[in-house]
């Protein structure tokens, strides 16, 4: 999951949590505020009523008979009730409660303050009530408005967050896309610094660039080394070869000497070829070959078969390619794949019998594409089968020819392309090489 997406999800979740908490607490907060407000008002009224009584006496406002007083406003939103408390000696503490109060047969919720006072040696109770049904409605409205405002704010802030995160993470994305994913080989590494004011990204960019430059330096050193080894070894071979060729042109030399010179030239050719092969293996191992081509295997096999026609005819070997499925391998090196198949076919010709046969098939299966190359040659002894891809493996029987480096190169190239190699062989019947290309499920 991308960092940017993770941040966005985290932001959204944490804010949703805030909304939930706020939504849950909101009614209580509003209620608290509202009651606080009413309580202040009730207390103020209580004091006012008590002041009036103190000034003018209770008789002014109370009824004669039982000294009680009742007053309701027209909407029954408020009332004041004063009544004497019989049998009470002490003044009770002031309390504020919510009660359902029946006024003229209509039950309404009220917040009521009860305070006792002494007048004329008699304890009275003063109750002032205020209807809270309308307040409860107000409370709900305020809660809703507050909740919606919060949700809206949070949605806006999520968008702002995502936008900002994108802006903030742009250098990181660029480092990943351009410097890591976009780098196929160290030589083509793009070392232009990523523009950013974020210190951590600057450091990351510098570290990656430095690392890649070190790899590039090592890569170039290796490349130069291989090139120099080639130069140092091929030059003396070149000198000897041309010298022997010149000597061989001399008509005066004995047949015996001529034979030896000719043989020496062949040995030099072999040496040169071994050096080339070793360097090729080394170059593949050191990733000096690019894998940036899409190769049509069917077309490649047909091309190789065409190139080998004359070679086949010298031993009168028939080459059959009856079943070739279409397949393209991506991120491959065509020259190397050509070498891979031509080395196998070279062996198939080399160890084949006169008038022999070679069958090449290419079959697409569910998750693998298989190229099978079967010959009717001498075959490979079972105990040697596991060693044929080794470099310079010597076989027990001295009569059996050495496989040289041809198959070692085959192995190196198939490892380089992550292919699987299988060999089956039966003495005097022939050998089958199977090269398996994994098919990526999504390509």
């Amino acid at each position: 999951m991308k960092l940017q997406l993770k941040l966005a999800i985290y932001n959204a979740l944490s804010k949703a949590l805030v909304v939930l908490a706020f939504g849950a607490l909101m009614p209580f907060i509003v209620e608290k505020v509202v009651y606080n407000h009413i309580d202040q008002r009730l207390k103020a009224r209580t004091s006012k009523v008590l002041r009036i009584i103190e000034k003018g006496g209770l008789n002014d406002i109370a009824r004669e008979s039982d000294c009680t007083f009742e007053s309701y406003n027209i909407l029954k939103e408020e009332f004041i009730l004063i009544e004497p408390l019989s049998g009470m000696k002490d003044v009770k503490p002031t309390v504020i409660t919510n009660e359902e109060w029946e006024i003229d047969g209509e039950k309404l919720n009220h917040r009521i303050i009860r305070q006792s006072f002494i007048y004329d040696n008699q304890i009275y109770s003063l109750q002032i009530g205020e209807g809270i049904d309308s307040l409860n409605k107000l409370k709900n409205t305020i809660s809703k408005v507050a909740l919606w405002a919060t949700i809206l704010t949070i949605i806006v802030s999520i968008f702002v967050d995502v936008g900002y995160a994108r802006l903030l993470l742009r250098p990181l994305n660029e480092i990943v896309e351009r410097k890591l994913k976009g780098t196929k080989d160290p030589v083509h590494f793009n070392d232009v610094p990523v523009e950013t004011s974020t210190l951590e990204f600057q450091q990351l960019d510098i570290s990656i660039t430095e690392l890649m430059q070190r790899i590039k330096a090592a890569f170039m050193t290796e490349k130069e080394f291989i090139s120099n080894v080639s130069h140092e070894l091929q030059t003396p071979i070149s000198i000897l070869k041309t010298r022997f060729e010149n000597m061989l042109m001399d008509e005066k030399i004995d047949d015996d000497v001529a034979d030896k010179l000719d043989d020496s030239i062949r040995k030099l050719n072999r040496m040169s070829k071994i050096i080339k092969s070793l360097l090729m293996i080394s170059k593949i191992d050191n990733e000096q070959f690019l894998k940036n081509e899409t190769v049509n295997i069917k077309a490649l096999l047909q091309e190789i078969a065409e190139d080998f026609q004359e070679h086949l005819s010298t031993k009168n070997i028939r080459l059959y390619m009856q079943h070739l499925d279409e397949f393209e391998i991506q991120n491959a090196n065509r020259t190397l794949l050509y070498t891979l198949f031509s080395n196998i076919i070279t062996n198939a010709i080399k160890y084949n019998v006169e008038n022999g046969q070679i069958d090449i098939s290419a079959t697409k299966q569910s998750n693998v594409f298989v190229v099978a190359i079967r010959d009717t040659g001498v075959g490979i002894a079972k105990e040697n089968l596991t060693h044929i891809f080794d470099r310079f493996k010597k076989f027990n029987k001295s009569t059996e020819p050495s496989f040289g480096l041809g198959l070692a190169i085959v192995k190196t190239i198939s490892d380089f392309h992550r292919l699987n190699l299988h060999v089956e062989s039966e003495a005097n019947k022939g050998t089958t090489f199977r090269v398996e290309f994994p098919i990526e499920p999504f390509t």
Partner: protein
Amino acid sequence: MNVLIVEDERSLSHEMEIYLTKQGLHCDVAFTGAKALEMMWVNSYDFVLLDIGLPDTNGFEILKEAKKNAIDSAFIVLTARSETDDKILGLDLGADDYLAKPFSLPELHARMQAILRRKHGLKVQIIDINGFMMDYQNRTLTFEDAPVVLTKKEFDLLHYLALHKGRVLSRSQLTEHIWGDVMDDDYDSNYIDVHVKNLRKKLAAHAPIEWFETVRGIGYRLNAQ
């Protein structure tokens, strides 16, 4: 025909000089890039055989410099480095051909002949091989106007031998020319015998070919009749 050999390995330039002189070419040798450029100003060369790894400069620089100054010699780049990029670069810079070391001297000579044919273009060149007339451009061989049908390899083989008439070419030299680098000459040199056998059969159907000689079990030679 003037040839400039630019090669710092003295033993190698010496052997090249011996061989090409025997082929009737006049050779000068330069061991450094600076010397080579100097000699190219002073003299006019048909061929410059240019080594890439020179002590004072890179052969490609010489090639660039020479092309910039409109030196019209044919350039054959010689290199012992293993880079295929070198080949592409050399040809891109205007070299006429490219040979990897270790090369074979008759192969070098054949490449030079091929360049000459290319440079002097359309003029049809007929090689007379003791009565067999070879037209390389059209890849035909006739004897007294009767066509002799050869495979591509047989034609190349006969042409290569005809180019070096009177000189022995060994099986490995012939293999190298016909197959290039693909083959392992350990086992392929007798393939040449198969081709030679077929070629001889086709030629002998028209005229006696004692001039097509097998030499010392090493190789083959076309002699003058």
